[in-house]
């Protein structure tokens, strides 16, 4: 018995498969089943099998202990499991917790204890699989993990986006093409007058009020079609106008000119100076249309045909090019589309994620051993509810993002005859009435009431399950006392694995997913223990990690998952409040235009020019002369009134100037007062003003 503890281990995966197969067959009561003997528990009566223990195992050939040990040793010796054999291996931070298995696994992984003895500060970020994925693994090392052997052209997260864009583009293009073909292939019935809508002439008010909605047609092809329809009815003026409008719209859409209510046809023609062909076509069309609009000479059929023959080839060329472009896009899109396939030519997606991880925390050992037993192992992809029909069992490991509705779906799936293993997901366990205990269990593991040992018909029995070693991180509590859960594996007195039938299927809950890890399987008799617990191997088993259920089925759900709903509502309310407070300016305000500032001197000069134009010199002289003459009288002979000549003589005597010059200035100043409103020479006025000022200064200052 004791030899089984160390030398006769079973792989855990094999155990799970066997356990599941036996229990499911026991649940459905299939006759003529396997050779495995299952311990009968009153609780699981529905899952009992009536086969005798002596019947051979024809569907699930279990290896013997020695063979199983050889298999495990051979697997762990591969270079994928560097933690086992490479003392230089540096743990990842997510691996450190698996070191609790190091001592027990030391026989098979001699380097594990050495690796775990290294300081935690040296631990690497990320995961081993992540290093391989990023190409950062050391390929020269004989113990380095194998790089993934399949290609992914684009990250999976973008695959869905590209797929949506692709089909959206295809759908819209197909729709547009269909509409375009139908519209252009449909012939306007000339025998049915009134089918085409005639152009409504604009009223004068409409012509001059661009704010009114006129419902003006702007589609080039529609205008041409309407023109032809009108021509068929004999309304050549309106038809010619539509041809002209089609050409202008085409030029506007091509950004060769810009339509504007204030622009004339001459402006449009001048804008086409660099495009003589277009300009000529427009000129011809304009001539015909203007003659009709303003010349009272509506065009006849010949004029319409000529106009149409000039315009139609120009505008339809663009449409044909657009059509070619569209077809080209439809052809090119698949060529640049995404390769949404996963591993090419491989068994699903098994070579990815935890199933391909050879570190202590990975499940690579489990996957390899399952495949050796003929089980098809895959990573589950997509929504949890999108289960492939050939999947018999699912193992959910790690904490998931599943919601109650997802668990309900899983419940229904299990009831239909499938097997579910929930490992290390407290939320999932809680949905089925099982809680994870807060404490860590470090007692030896032992089989529970639901455990059924596996016995072969050949010689050596397997290890005594009671002597298995290892540690579990936590134990399970059954919240519903009346539930059908039965302890499957105990850690001391507390269960760490529970089992119960649900409908036609079974549910197994493990407290800790690390029990399935490479490090755990390498330790003690963990594999043997679970071999006895799980009877029947499924044909296909999928593994779903912590990210399952993390995706959202809709944008709103995505926002809800990210807890952004409330934030967005608050932002929207804030924007609404700002909009209400600030009005339209909140959304459309522009920086105020700052005018160019001029120098103060420029303003003075401008004012001076304005005054000069207004003949201010004459007025200034008039005003100044009145004051200056009074001052001069007051200074020379206060109280008396001298004549101009007398005053001039007195000033000349005082200042030493020539009397004639002084008298002349005084006379001009006096005469300026008398010729108000008369035309005078501003230069002369200014000169007189300056000379008068000089006299005032010389006779006693400016005051």
């Amino acid at each position: 018995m004791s030899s089984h503890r160390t030398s006769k281990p079973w792989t855990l995966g094999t155990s799970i498969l066997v356990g599941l197969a036996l229990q499911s067959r026991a649940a459905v009561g299939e006759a003529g089943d396997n050779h495995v003997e299952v311990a009968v528990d009153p609780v699981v009566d529905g899952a009992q099998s009536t086969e005798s223990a002596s019947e051979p195992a024809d569907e699930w050939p279990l290896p013997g202990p020695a063979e199983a040990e050889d298999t495990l040793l051979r697997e762990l010796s591969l270079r994928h499991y560097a933690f086992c054999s490479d003392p230089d291996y540096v743990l990842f931070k997510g691996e450190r917790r698996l070191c609790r298995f190091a001592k027990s696994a030391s026989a098979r992984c001699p380097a594990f204890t050495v690796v775990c003895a290294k300081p935690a500060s040296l631990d690497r970020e990320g995961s081993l699989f992540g290093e391989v994925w990023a190409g950062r693994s050391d390929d020269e090392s004989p113990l380095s993990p194998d790089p993934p052997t399949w290609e992914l052209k684009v990250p999976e997260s973008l695959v869905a986006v590209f797929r949506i864009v692709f089909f959206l583009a295809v759908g819209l293009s197909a729709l547009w093409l269909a509409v375009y073909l139908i519209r252009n292939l449909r012939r306007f019935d000339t025998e049915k007058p009134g089918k085409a809508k005639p152009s409504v002439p604009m009223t004068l008010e409409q012509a001059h009020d661009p704010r009114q909605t006129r419902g003006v047609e702007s589609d080039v092809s529609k205008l041409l079609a309407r023109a032809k329809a009108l021509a068929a009815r004999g309304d050549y003026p309106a038809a010619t106008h539509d041809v002209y409008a089609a050409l202008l719209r085409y030029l506007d859409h091509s950004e060769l000119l810009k339509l504007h209510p204030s622009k004339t046809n001459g402006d449009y023609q001048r804008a086409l100076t660099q495009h003589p062909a277009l300009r000529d076509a427009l000129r011809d069309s304009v001539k015909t249309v203007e003659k009709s609009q303003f010349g009272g000479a509506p065009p006849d059929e010949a004029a319409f045909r000529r106009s149409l023959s000039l315009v139609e080839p120009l505008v339809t060329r663009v449409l044909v090019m657009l059509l070619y472009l569209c077809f080209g896009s439809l052809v090119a899109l698949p060529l640049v589309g995404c390769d949404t396939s996963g591993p090419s030519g491989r068994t699903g997606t098994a070579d990815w994620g935890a199933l391909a991880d050879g570190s202590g925390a990975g499940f690579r050992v489990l996957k390899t051993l399952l495949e050796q037993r003929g089980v098809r192992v895959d990573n589950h992809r997509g929504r949890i509810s999108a289960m492939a029909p050939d999947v018999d069992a699912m193992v959910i490991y790690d904490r998931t993002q599943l919601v109650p509705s997802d668990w309900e779906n899983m419940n229904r799936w299990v009831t239909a005859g499938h097997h579910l293993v929930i490992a290390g997901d407290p939320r999932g366990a809680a949905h089925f009435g099982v809680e994870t205990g807060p404490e860590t269990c470090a007692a030896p593991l032992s089989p529970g009431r639901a455990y059924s040992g596996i016995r072969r018909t050949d010689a050596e029995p397997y290890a005594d399950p009671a002597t298995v070693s290892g540690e579990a991180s936590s134990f399970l509590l059954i919240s519903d006392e009346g539930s059908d859960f039965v302890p499957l594996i105990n850690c001391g007195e507390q269960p760490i694995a529970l089992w119960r039938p649900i409908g036609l299927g079974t549910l197994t809950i493990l407290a800790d997913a690390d029990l399935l890890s490479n490090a755990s399987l390498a330790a003690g008799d963990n594999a043997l223990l679970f071999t006895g617990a799980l009877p029947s191997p499924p044909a296909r088993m999928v593994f779903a990690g912590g990210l399952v259920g993390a995706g959202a089925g809709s944008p709103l759900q995505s926002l809800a998952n990210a807890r952004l709903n409330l934030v967005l509502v608050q932002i929207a309310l804030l924007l609404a409040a700002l909009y209400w407070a600030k009005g339209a300016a909140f959304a459309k305000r522009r920086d105020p235009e700052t005018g160019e500032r001029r120098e103060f001197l420029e303003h003075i000069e401008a004012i001076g020019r304005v005054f000069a134009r207004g003949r201010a010199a004459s007025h200034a002289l008039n005003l100044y002369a009145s004051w200056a003459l009074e001052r001069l009288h007051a200074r020379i002979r206060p109280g008396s009134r001298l004549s101009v000549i007398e005053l001039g003589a007195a000033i000349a005597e005082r200042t030493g100037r020539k009397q004639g010059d002084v008298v002349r200035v005084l006379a001009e100043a006096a005469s300026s007062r008398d010729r108000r409103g008369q035309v005078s020479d501003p230069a002369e006025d200014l000169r007189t003003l300056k000379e008068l000022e000089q006299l005032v200064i010389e006779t006693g200052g400016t005051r």
Partner: protein
Amino acid sequence: MNVQDFESRFEAICTEVRKVLIGQDDVVEHVLIAICAQGHVLIEGVPGLGKTLLVRTLGHVLNADFRRIQFTPDLMPSDVTGGNIFNQKENEFVFLKGPIFTQLLLADEVNRAPAKTQSALLEAMQERSVTVDGTTRPLPTPYLVIATQNPVENQGTYPLPEAQLDRFLLKLDVLHPTQEAEEQLLHRILRGFDPTSLESAGVTKVASAADILDMQRVVGEVQVDRHIVHYIAEIVGRTRNHSSIYLGASPRASIGILNTARAFAARSGRDYVVPDDVKEFAPAVLRHRLLLHPDAELEGVTANDCIRSILSETPVPKNIA
């Protein structure tokens, strides 16, 4: 004469004038348009651009009587209109006609004469007649006054009052010719071109006063759609509501735009006016009739800027946009 004849005759006149005047094709056409629209022209340009030569050549080509008056500060009104002179021999007063009695009158540097002398042109331009000492004497037909003024020399000038400015149909800004045109002119001079001798330049008389009257009649027959009328009225109306314009254009401006648009339509060989015709001549008709706010002037806004903004905002009739 129909519009096609009008077009050909118009082109012929322009071709003859261009033999002498180089690089001023637009000015030539505009002046001829004004003649056909029975309007007067005010030409503003620095000296030496051929303003006098233009009018003299035009008079020669049209075989019309041409007189030139050089306005100076001491020019009296009677120097322009003429006056009654006592004839001792006849023992009576005889009216001696002034230079205003002509078909093509060039009023050179009209802003150099005082307002009193300038006003002597008012009646002639508007009424096509001159009243001296109570006697009104008609002026010959066709009658066109082409006045010039220098935009740079403001000393000793008498700016035309608004009332007189309003009587000019068009105000044309004559700019320096392009370098190519100037080179072409120099080459002509080198080949012996004498601008004072029009016959030596090969300028022939291709029209007469009767032809001008005929062309004016054809212009009068050009039809104008009511939408065009509305367009013109709206443009002029906007000059009275513009934020930078203190005094907008008068109804005389609307008439001016209408007549020039008709003349231009006939020149283009059409007997109907299109919006382009209106837009082509609205600036020349309006720019001298607008009085800007002083603050707008201080900011550098010009009448041309205001007209441009009005035209860019006024919707064109029958526009599909």
